[in-house]
């Protein structure tokens, strides 16, 4: 497994305010995935165990509807954005489908159980990351509200 650079993690809002030592511990949990255009990364209503961070490329978040034949795009996510965080918070099924929309879309992937175990060892990491996840969800909600105002 390639070691993710802490310098790269520092540039991600999810890990804002973590120390270098804490970032190194997070880095040890990350693995890289690379996806081509139209690869489905997560599928709505499937069980979830992982959080994804877009390092390069972009992804499209889509929601299904019983009244429409196919899923509807609700937002594109680019560099530095996260998805899959809802399942990290509530352990529920995936709330949306996400697919890569650019070849070579590079992701960092963190397993939920590994992250929770790290938080048990260092609750301050858990507080900081969960606070940052809450802020990210808030930002996405504001984006959604502004889109449909």
């Amino acid at each position: 497994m390639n070691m993710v650079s802490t310098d790269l993690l520092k540039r991600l809002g999810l890990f804002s305010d973590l120390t270098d030592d804490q970032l190194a511990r997070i880095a040890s949990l990350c693995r890289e995935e690379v996806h081509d255009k139209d690869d489905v990364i997560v599928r709505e209503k499937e069980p979830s165990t992982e959080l994804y961070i877009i390092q390069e490329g972009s992804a499209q978040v889509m929601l299904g509807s019983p009244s429409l034949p196919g899923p509807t795009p609700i937002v594109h996510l680019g560099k530095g954005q996260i998805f899959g965080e809802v399942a990290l918070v509530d352990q529920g099924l995936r709330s949306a489908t996400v697919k890569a929309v650019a070849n070579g879309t590079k992701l960092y992937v963190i397993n939920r159980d590994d992250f929770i175990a790290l938080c048990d060892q260092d609750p301050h990491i858990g507080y900081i990351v969960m606070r940052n996840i809450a802020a990210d969800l808030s930002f996405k909600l504001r984006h959604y509200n502004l889109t449909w105002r």
Partner: protein
Amino acid sequence: MIYQVSYVVVGGGHPGTIMNQEERPEVGERVEFADQEFEIVEVLEIIPPRGDFAYLHATCRPVEGSE
């Protein structure tokens, strides 16, 4: 400073995008996402910056002929 920018397309019907960038978006600039070009018409700082991160919402409109 790293800017987390929410690009909102006027008129609805387009989901827009959220991405990090190293330069602050400015009104009049053009930006490309979802294989289309847009012109920025408004930039809002709704949330105060925190540490090395600033959070902006940029309203934009499609550039004609860019689809």
